[in-house]
């Protein structure tokens, strides 16, 4: 659906070097002067070897990367999404950038470059505080792995988690310290040749998080990774692998920001989840990469492959995402429901404003018997943006009694944005029970006036209405994220009415 009419006048002032200005537009737009160690621009086998060497990887890992690189070379970039962007020059990107002071891995937070810690503090995650708080009862209980450009800089609470047998560390460390686990699962959910961006990630991924929850363990705290792209012309290719063994539970949060830059930056991540028998993985994302300015200049290209396999019986994987950032988003967190009675969930809020484009949704692949999945997608479009839900519900012939419920709601603000819903359903077993609901609505002038008459400013009114619209998804977020995410929805839509 596409309509055209008046567009709110963008603020004339695009200068973003003042703190006050940043607060109003993109709060995380600062960049930090940290000495970086770069690999040369461009992509070839030597770069892949260099990355592997920098990471001190074993031979098998290098071979795995090179294999992926060769696959990638024979692939073409997909163009089926409802996205338009100029061709990406894959040879004009730095594939490896690391803060110089990180060459020698810090043993503890005390050894981490204070400049880096200051950056994270600015982002609202005081790592030091986290550790101090660890001993205090009833305080925040989140373990954080922070990834800065290509390198994981600090993981908190490691010792406490280790006591329970939980492994939470940078994936580069896991490759060295837990090669058997990594070998067993890496690439099993998202194969190397799965798609163009996943193949690229396999070849050049630099860091990310690794999580293993042993049998019967309920991870006592939220695990969280914070991704930050800081360096110019850098791609971030992180790789996350989470394995929840039988009867275990883990809730994992992921947050992302990037500085405001005029040029586009590439982000191509892969996340793989494996849930064994009776295990549950809850994966939440608040994606707030820099979206570009009012005229569509700059911003992150976000091409992400996220997928989980419910391997065991009665396992469950739940994706929750709040997507407000990036110039271009291409992302379909999916579930492969192999185990009988396994459950897949996808809760999504995607906000696009100005010239942002988002093509996002999920795939629910039902293979096991009595598997069920739920999809709740809330798209909010403003400005001249385009917001597409694209989803697949696939019922395999052997999946007796599979159930799916899908709800896709779109909210439009103004008359120049687009909301699109593209649901695919492939049902190869006639015992399947599938429901699909879709609505499109607009924030009405009557709603706005009603709120304003009660004393709310126009922007608070929009924020209230939008958060109400997205409530079913927002309430899936862990407490630690919910308040921040609510504010983010309001901020992302600032200036979109009037």
């Amino acid at each position, binding site marked *: 659906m596409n309509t055209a009419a008046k567009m709110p006048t963008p603020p004339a002032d695009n200068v973003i070097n003042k703190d006050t200005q940043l607060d109003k537009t993109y709060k995380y737009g600062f960049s930090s002067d940290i000495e970086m160690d770069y690999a040369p621009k461009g992509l070839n086998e030597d770069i892949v070897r260099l990355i592997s060497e920098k990471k001190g990887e074993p031979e098998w890992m290098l071979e795995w990367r090179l294999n992926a690189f060769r696959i990638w070379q024979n692939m073409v970039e997909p163009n089926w999404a409802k996205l338009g962007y100029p061709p990406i020059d894959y040879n004009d990107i730095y594939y490896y950038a690391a803060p110089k002071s990180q060459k020698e891995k810090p043993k503890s937070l005390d050894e981490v470059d204070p400049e880096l810690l200051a950056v994270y503090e600015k982002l609202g995650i005081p790592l030091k505080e986290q550790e101090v708080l660890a001993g205090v009862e009833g305080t925040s209980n989140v373990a954080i792995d922070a990834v800065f450009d290509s390198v994981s800089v600090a993981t908190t609470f490691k010792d406490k988690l280790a006591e329970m047998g939980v492994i939470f560390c940078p994936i580069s460390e896991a490759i060295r310290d837990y090669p058997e686990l990594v070998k067993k699962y890496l690439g099993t959910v998202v194969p190397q040749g799965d798609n163009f961006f996943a193949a690229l990630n396999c070849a050049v991924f630099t860091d990310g998080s690794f999580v293993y929850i042993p049998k019967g363990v309920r991870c006592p705290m939220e695990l969280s990774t914070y991704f930050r792209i800081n360096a110019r012309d850098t791609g971030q290719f992180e790789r996350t692998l989470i394995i929840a063994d039988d009867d275990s539970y883990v809730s994992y949060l992921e947050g992302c920001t990037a500085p405001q830059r005029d040029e586009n930056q590439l982000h191509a991540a892969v996340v793989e989840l494996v849930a064994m028998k009776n295990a549950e993985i809850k994966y939440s994302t608040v994606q707030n990469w820099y979206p570009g300015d009012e005229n569509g200049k700059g911003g992150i290209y976000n091409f992400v492959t996220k997928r989980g396999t419910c391997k065991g019986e009665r396992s469950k994987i739940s994706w929750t995402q709040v997507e407000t950032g990036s110039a271009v988003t291409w992302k379909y967190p999916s579930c492969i429901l192999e185990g009988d009675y396994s459950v897949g969930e996808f809760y999504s809020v995607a906000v696009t404003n100005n010239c942002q484009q988002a093509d996002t949704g999920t795939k629910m692949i039902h293979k096991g018997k009595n598997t069920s999945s739920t999809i709740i997608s809330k798209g909010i479009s403003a400005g001249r943006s385009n917001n597409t839900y694209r989803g697949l519900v696939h019922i395999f012939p052997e999946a007796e009694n599979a159930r799916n419920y899908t709800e896709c709601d779109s909210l439009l603000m103004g008359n120049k944005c687009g909301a699109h819903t593209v649901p695919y359903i492939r049902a190869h077993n006639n015992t399947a029970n599938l429901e699909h609901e879709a609505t499109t609505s607009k924030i*009405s*002038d*009557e*709603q706005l*006036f*009603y*709120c*304003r*008459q*009660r*004393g*709310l*400013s*126009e922007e*608070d009114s929009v924020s*209230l*209405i939008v*958060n*109400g*619209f*997205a*409530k*079913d998804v927002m309430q899936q977020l862990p407490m630690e994220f919910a308040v921040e995410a609510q504010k983010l929805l309001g901020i992302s839509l600032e200036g979109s009415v009037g």
Partner: protein
Amino acid sequence: MTELLNIENLHARVEEKEILKGLSLKVNAGEVHAIMGPNGSGKSTLASVLAGKPGYEITEGSVNFQGEDLLEFEAEERAQKGIFLGFQYPVEIPGVNSMYFLRTALNAQRKARGEEELDGIDFMDFIQDKLELLDMNTEFLKRPVNVGFSGGEKKRHETLQMCALNPTLALLDETDSGLDIDALQIVSRGVNAMRGEGKAIVLITHYQRLLDYIEPDFVHVLKDGQIIKSGDKTLATELEKEGYSGLTNETTAA
């Protein structure tokens, strides 16, 4: 008597159509005014213009509220200054429960007045007696604003908001429409509780029925964008008997 509101020769149009054509009205603190009139006479437009609804163009005249030019202010600023509009057709806000909505509104107003905001617990204490006054319970506050409300529930909810926000000037647009006698009594109880020194109420209504429960000090007849007759409450009874048509003839003749 302290003057609260003074409307002089107000002309207002919406999409090139003139609706208010030189309306004048004075409201003093402590008074209750009823504005009656046939459909399309401009009653709801008057309420909307006073509350600052976008889309209306004021071509002539002035509105003074407590010594300030009311037309200078945005809708939310007018609300913060103590103007409340009870809507004829309250709007649904899916996913936002009444408690959150009302507390957010109250705090926005308190903040604008430099008062301390209420947290969830304080708010529950604050709202309790207002709920009781209107025969409502806290379960009601958990429902999304106006979603699936019956006509009576919507009007009680409007009245609850009025009692909570405690305005200086309450404009009630057809608060009685769609109410059965029981609901009418409850809503009237809320409105009567609002009466008091320093405050005023303007009731916009079709029927005299409401005025049996809320006794006005003045009754005005609005027709074709002007107030054509004013009087005390007996005027309402007269109108009920005679209708508006006779009245028009009388004034045009005069």
